[in-house]
């Protein structure tokens, strides 16, 4: 996976602003290595495709990654940068 191809051609948004039901690719996690390791262990790694299952706008959100559902607080959702993945894109 080349980081350059991840970051080009598509608009990078924050996961906090992602829409419910859509799929996104994680391009960056703006956090310390503690946070990154924690997310890695939960299944969220840069380059992964995640799906927004439930978006509450302002509250926590749930995402699907590697077949599990994970609740993410607002703060953390603002630290995950994603680009939208269209069906069949991956």
């Amino acid at each position, binding site marked *: *996976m080349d*980081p*350059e191809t991840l970051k080009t051609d598509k608009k990078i948004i924050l996961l906090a602003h992602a829409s419910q039901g859509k799929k996104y690719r994680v391009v960056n*996690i703006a*956090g310390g*290595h*503690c*946070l*990154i*390791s*924690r*997310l*890695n*262990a*939960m*299944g969220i*790694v*840069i*380059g992964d495709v995640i799906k927004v*299952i*439930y978006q*509450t*706008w*302002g*509250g*926590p959100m*749930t995402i*699907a*990654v*590697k*077949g*599990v*559902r*994970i*609740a*993410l*607080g*607002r*703060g*953390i959702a603002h*630290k995950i940068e994603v680009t939208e993945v269209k069906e069949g894109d991956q």
Partner: protein
Amino acid sequence: MKFKTSSNSKDKTKRSFKKKIVRKGINEIISCLGCQGSCMQCPAFTNNPNNPNNRNNPVNPDNPNNSNNLDNANNAINANNIKKISNPVRELDIALVGSPNSGKTTIFNNITGAKQHVGNYPGVTVEIKTGTRKYNGYKLNFIDLPGTYSLTAFSEEERITRNFILKEKPDIVLNIIDASNLERNLYLTTQLIELNCQMILVFNMADLMEKSGLHLDLELLSNLLGASIVLTVGSKNLGTQNIIDEIIKINANSYIKKNIKINYGDEIENELIKITKLLSSIINSQNKAVSFNNYIINYNLEWVSLKLLEQDNLILKELSEVLSLSNLNKLTNLVDGSINHIKKITGYYPNTLIAEARYGFIKGALKESAIVKGKNDVLLSDKIDQVLLNKVFGLPIFAVIMWLIFQLVFKIGDYPTRWLQLGFNKLSELLSVLMPDSLLKSLLIDGVIGGVGGVLVFTPKIMILFICIAFLEDSGYMARAAFIMDRIMHKIGLHGKSFIPMLIGFGCTVPAYMCSRTLENKNDRLITLHINTFMSCGGRLPIYILFAGTFFTNNAGNVIFAIYLIGILMAVVFAKVLRATRFKGESEPFVMELPVYRMPTLRGILIHMWERTWHYIKKAGTVILSISIIIWILFTFPRINNEIVKPYNDQIVLLEQKFSQGLISNSELDLNIKKIKQEMSLKQLDYSSAGRIGHFIEPLFKPLGFDWRLALASIAGIAGKEVVVSTLGTTFSISGASNGYESLRSSLKDAYNPLIGFNFMLFCLLYFPCIAGLAVFQREAGTKEMIFQIFFTITLAWVVSLIVYQIGKFFI
């Protein structure tokens, strides 16, 4: 393979230490954690790198026996040829490791038969539980380690698990895996592979895997992962025997572990070689000067290097304790250089690349061994979540669920409680008829039955409450409650995860304190610990039931619900206050797995409920019994002397004379004698030690509307809130005003008004729950915080009760 009967002295020291762990349990582990590796002086952690029995020597990457191992791994799955062992009893330590929700505790219960709780939310196993199973000449010690997602040592759970594997070196690690989600669950496995553990992979919930349509070539997968695989269905107790067979087989066949190497990519591998090389030369040079026997140094150096690249703070700390400063600087310079180099070339920090490599390894192994691909169907769970997590309906649904639980506890629980009351009443009536008037009779009726019986009658209600909490936990709703509450918790500077210990606090504060360990951030943890006091525990429930039932008969359920709400409100307010004053700073990010909804098994709920209820009954039989007796002694001695008794006896004689002269009727005589006897009892109460203590402290409680009896009950409640009710029972029973629960209620009604009743409930809600709770608090937060907790809660209880009473007075 280790023979525990061997005369290796080092082995023996290790063994004795382990026994200590089993005996002393959590205290030991905590104290070990406290020093975080600095206990290298401790003989237990010594191990000899030259010990041929020690399989954790720095790894020999090219094991000449590899082909042989392959065969062994193959055998592991289908063969069933267990050698009969005729040697003396061999002892094996088997550690259970797995992610939260993998069904680890169910497997533990199935194997050991231990009554231990299983929960469907992260962080249930907060202390290390052990269980033993004897089988075929083996003594198998199972150690249930806390559920963790990884071994990176960021949270307390991860540290406990990691340190146990590193320091205690269990003979076999039983890695419990949720087979319905292999990809994520095997992440922990990859880290265990890195540690080069002797492992058995337990694919639990194999029925769900089958249902998803996934069909795996288990032999191939077992070879790829370097460990044998056992399929189980924990909820139905299937496959348990296979685990034990596998353990014995690994041991009996002199099974040599196959070393699996995960490839992290060239950039990482190159740097790893550099770091390992420096590390080994540093250790060699320093080894001549200092002879150290640190478990980290004696561990696989490649693993240590990997952890350094991952920026694992703990390993750095552990190394800093053994390496000289110059060597440490040399090492950190190299590691920093490597990290920057990797970041420059790839654009990512090593920890991302390493995680990617681990998931890549899993993906590859699964892809290669999948015969038919499965489809992970969690649609139903998602649909339920759309309703239960809904922004608009989520919170009201949660409130309704809580309200329903309270109604259930009070409406259904009322019947068995009444039967128990009747039973205890009959028992004391029987005793009063059978026994002559004596101190022993008073002790039995007033002390034991009045005290312990008064607490035991609440058992059915507490059982129902525990069943409800167990249901919430095991179904997966608890994690959703955390999600729903996150928005609110966020406003008070905490996040949803803090709400789980608070919910458990409704059952008992002690496990709630321990559960708060799932919070990684220290300030978050301390705030959660402090405000957990305001969650009404099961021990407080009897007080509420007694007082609300007495003063608010028809609205008892609602009043108690209100008290619980006030508790939550207090928690909210003080979380904010504490965050703003004592524990400033950001709260940790909220990340939490939402487990798939599962129908809880009846067995699981019953085990869970019974464990907690038994704890309650045991407390009634031990602590509360002894305190009841002490209270009875305080109430009975010193006894009033004849001089005081004489005028009363004279009065009775006078009345009897009047009766014999026909001046008063029979009923009048009885009434008057009863009155005199009551006065006499009151005099005795005033005269007794308890009465004196009560009267002495009364001025302090007077402004709250409490008389000396309530004051005394609240002081006794420090031992445990159940004691409050038993003390009141004894007080009113000795004073002759009441006998049994029903009459306790009526005499309370005579003595106090609803305002005082409500205020007393409030007071009991607000001050710290019990001595046992304080002990755990001290262990989790330290002595300073515990002292703060004591003063903070007592002051708060007093001030709030004062305000409520002084204002409420004007309305009554």
